[in-house]
């Protein structure tokens, strides 16, 4: 990894610091979490890229959703995502959060996670290898550098859309809206 990027550091320190200090929150959804311990420990050592797991959403800026999302987990995911501080990045890991995967017919899981929280990137596969996380991270670096990893901005702009979808999946939400909702825009149909 090229660390001698002094001019980039001087031009945009926030961007560079966001790139090289991704603190991922422990959130064990589904079976994909089994691929994470080899990534953060001695075998693949994610810490050399500045990625460490942290225990609370306040300290984290990378949210890995590893595996299928049941309706109950979705609630926890939304609350965790809303507690993270901006800028924050989300990556869906495995095919289940992308389109339901092998749980397509399940009554208890949601398909299309990006209707409920914004996702900055996907890692497809069932299961993806641990190396896929590093590929995803390097892609995320590119996105951050180009300003395209803007999920938290999209969440703020389209909050009515996300909130409506969340209410459609979970029923009445028992926490207040994170942002002001002023227009009643139409949420997309829940498949």
């Amino acid at each position, binding site marked *: 990894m090229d*660390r001698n990027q002094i001019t980039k550091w001087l031009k945009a*320190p*926030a961007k*560079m*610091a*966001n790139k*090289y*200090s991704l*603190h991922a929150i422990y959130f064990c959804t589904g079976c994909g979490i089994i691929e994470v311990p080899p990534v953060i*420990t*001695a075998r693949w*050592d994610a*810490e*050399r890229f*500045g990625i460490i797991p*942290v*225990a*609370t959403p*306040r*300290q984290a*800026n990378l949210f890995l959703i590893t595996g299928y999302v049941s309706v109950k987990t979705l609630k926890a995911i939304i609350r965790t995502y809303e507690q993270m*501080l*901006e*800028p924050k990045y989300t990556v869906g890991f495995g095919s289940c959060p992308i389109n339901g995967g092998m749980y397509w017919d399940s009554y208890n899981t949601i398909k299309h996670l990006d209707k409920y929280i914004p996702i900055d990137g996907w890692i497809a596969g069932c299961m993806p290898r641990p190396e896929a996380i590093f590929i995803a991270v390097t892609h995320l670096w590119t996105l951050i550098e180009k300003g395209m990893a803007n999920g938290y901005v999209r969440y703020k702009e389209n909050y009515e859309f996300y909130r409506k979808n969340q209410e459609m999946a979970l029923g009445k939400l028992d926490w207040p809206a994170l942002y002001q909702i002023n227009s009643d825009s139409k949420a997309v149909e829940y498949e």
Partner: protein
Amino acid sequence: MENMVVKITQIILSPILALIVGVFFLGLARKIMARIHWRYGPPLIQPVIDMIRLFYQKSVSHGRMFDLGIILSLAGSIVVVLFLPFGQICPLAGSGGLLVILYIMLLAPLGLALSAGQGANPNISIGISRKFILTLGYEAPLLLVLLSVMTHYKTISIMEVVNIQQRTGWSIISFPLFLSGLAYFLILPAILGIRPFDMTSATQEISSGPMVEYGGKYLALTVLEHALVLFISIALFVNLFLGGAGNIVSFFMKMLVVFVLCLCINAVFPRFRIEQAIKYLWKWPTLLAFLGLITTIAIRS
């Protein structure tokens, strides 16, 4: 007049120097831990990168005390740094010495507790109560150790202690004080809050304890505070038992050796439960420190 200018420069520069050394130690800690695990590890400046990121992040406050407590804690640590000699430089040498340090050292955990207590998270209260119980555990042997040092050298000034050691040799290899030195080294992991005494900020059981609601700038300030605490407790050990130093470079080399030893302890031990920690702290280090104090008094009188 010139003396005054030198003094003011020292007062401004020494906390900055302490912060730089502390943050360097944090980076070194992560690198050395990684190498012990047979990993490559992050770059040495990783804590600085993290801190830049945290200062640019949006932060959430939980009330007035949440803001002020962390500043109180940082201020307390910075004031303690002014009373510690770096080699032969000590900005506030002539005022108070060890007694003042004993009082002000408590400000750091107190400020953190006041600040963290504002975030109404149950993990915080568990973490704070563990932190204070741990403080109670290591303060008893620490007091005995400092008392025996003060009795042995018949002074409360650290500068004086350093100067006497420069003439007569390190106190950790002199007869009655090696017991106290050993006791201080045994409680050093508890003061630093590293394993086996990291139950206050245990990430796996209580979601990093008092730190659970800190994010953004607040987390960056707590990291700085942690760096200062690291600096203070190791510098105190070097000054009292390893003979201080004639110049800054050898002082930092001594600190580095002590810190790497602590890291090796950190790398191989699992975490104590809080009652096991108290049992340990009030048994061996206290016994050694007490023995040291009695021997010192018997020899000196």
